[in-house]
């Protein structure tokens, strides 16, 4: 977690772009509820297109937020099947949000472009910084 006066941000480092996208999504869910408490009973698949990795990251996270608001679906596991700078294919497992079982965290309005970073580091690692509007 990074310090931001009004909102909340996260920084994640991962070995691959796939791992980065799934870890950022997991971290976002963990801000909203307890990711560990989610049963992986339902499966979803998504294909997204974006202008670059940054745009793709925002669309990916906002897609998850959309499912949460419309279907109360909370994912707890993510597999990125395919990723390139303009396209992402992913599989998610989770269940319907249940306040009595899942922790209650932030109501995230959106993942923002503000100070957004999605970068391949030297040595092949990947880094992301995302600030959420809460």
């Amino acid at each position, binding site marked *: 977690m990074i310090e931001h*006066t*009004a909102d909340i941000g996260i920084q994640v480092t991962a070995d691959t772009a796939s791992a980065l996208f799934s870890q950022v999504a997991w971290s976002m869910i963990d801000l909203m509820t307890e990711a560990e408490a989610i049963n992986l009973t339902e499966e979803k698949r998504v294909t997204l297109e974006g202008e670059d990795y940054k*745009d793709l990251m925002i669309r990916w996270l*906002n897609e998850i937020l*959309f499912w949460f608001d419309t279907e109360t679906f909370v994912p707890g596991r993510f597999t990125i099947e395919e990723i390139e700078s303009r396209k992402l294919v992913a599989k998610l497992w989770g269940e319907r*949000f249940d306040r009595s079982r899942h922790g*209650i965290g932030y*109501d995230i309005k959106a993942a923002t472009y*503000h100070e957004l970073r999605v970068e391949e580091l030297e040595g092949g690692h990947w880094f992301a910084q995302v600030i959420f*509007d809460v």
Partner: protein
Amino acid sequence: MDREEGRLKEGGMASEGGTPFKKISDYIWEIPKTGGMRVPGRIFASEAMMRTIKTDKSTDQVANVAHLPGILKYSMAMPDIHWGYGFPIGGVAAMDLQEGVVSPGGVGYDINCGVRLVRTHLTRKDLIGHEKELVKALFHAIPTGVGSRGAIRKLNQGEMEQVAKKGARWAVENGFGEAEDLHFIEENGCLKGADSDLVSQRAYDRGRDQLGTLGSGNHFLEVGVVTEIYLPTVADAFGLFRDQIVIWIHTGSRGFGYQICEESLYDMRRAVQTYGIQLPDSQLACAPIQSPEGQKYMAQMACGANFAWANRQCIMALARGSFEQVFGRSWRELGMYLLYDVCHNIAKREKHALDGVEREVLMHRKGATRAYPPGHPLTPEPYRSVGQPVLVPGDMGRYSFVLVGTEKAMELTFGSSCHGAGRMMSRHAAMREAKGRPIIQELERRGIHIMATGRRTVVEEISEAYKDVADVAHVVDRVGISRKVAKAEPICVIKG
């Protein structure tokens, strides 16, 4: 708090983090025009506040907004300024309608986040012994917190489109409140130009089950008591008196607005390239007001704003129901009339005088409130002789203010004032500060009954995390862009 001026360098220049400031008066600080800035920046704050403000990136954001095409006079920030995304929270920018741009970042994800204040005939002593029952009834009636839904029935597509077009009027037509309420809402609770056909199915789907819900973060419903009256004549006109029970409602357009904002940002990022607009921060993405992209956003944003007004209207109706249940009298007998409803995240067309000539401009207010003066035709008739109410909620543990708009606001800030306390501490820092403290019991010992869906919300919203809203109100009062009318302190609070 304003006595430490000796710390400034001679000539009134202070610099920290690269942004230079020029002192214009005790409460006005200017960021001179440099680089790609089209106008100077102006921050309304005390010297003590400036020291805090300079520690985050919000002053850079004031300078960034000054880069936007068509910005008029100044990129401004109110004393409750803090670090936002794109625009600072507390940011005000007027745009030329022909040359200017509209930026979703100047409105925010929560389109028409705003505040309404309801007055009552009840006094503090009427509430004694009922506090717990009342806070429970409100908490039960009005869903709060992450994933809050189901306050009223789930709306179908046709109903959602009507909400987007009609705003608060839809709520009234469906049994949530009375037609007379609409007179006491900014824009009468319906922003013109809403085109419900331009809103995506995804936005409708996201908002369908959220009308009448508070959400989380800094949103709340508060039952408070008026503890100070500063301007008796104005307070009289507003129907406020000492010891009176009042109700504050702070929320916005929920998932419906967030989705509209999010999708418009994708469009705007492309528009920035199409029109070759140079921006210092991509979250400031924008389009010329007169472009198809700009017009589309304005029409969508109006739908979002209208949803927010319908939302606050429904919440007020639910709150009236909770009071009826607890006090066994009708809301009319309890005198639960809407005092006023303001939006503080909005872009809208307004008439302002520039160099003595009245013209229409596009006002962006992101965490700022309209503050129209006495005599303004858009102020509801009962308040017209005194000015428009400006509603400034504080944090849950201290107090809130009712202010009134002034002519000076028209001169200095395009009829704008502050909107709240403004965060000072990150949520993480607040959590560290509150660690191990029984915050709910601490508040209860001070007579404040709070119910929240998540404990984390209460912890992060501790008073210490916010600027003292009294300092904010003091500055706008001293600058003259609003005047203090009354102060209210919390008794019952529900949060996300």
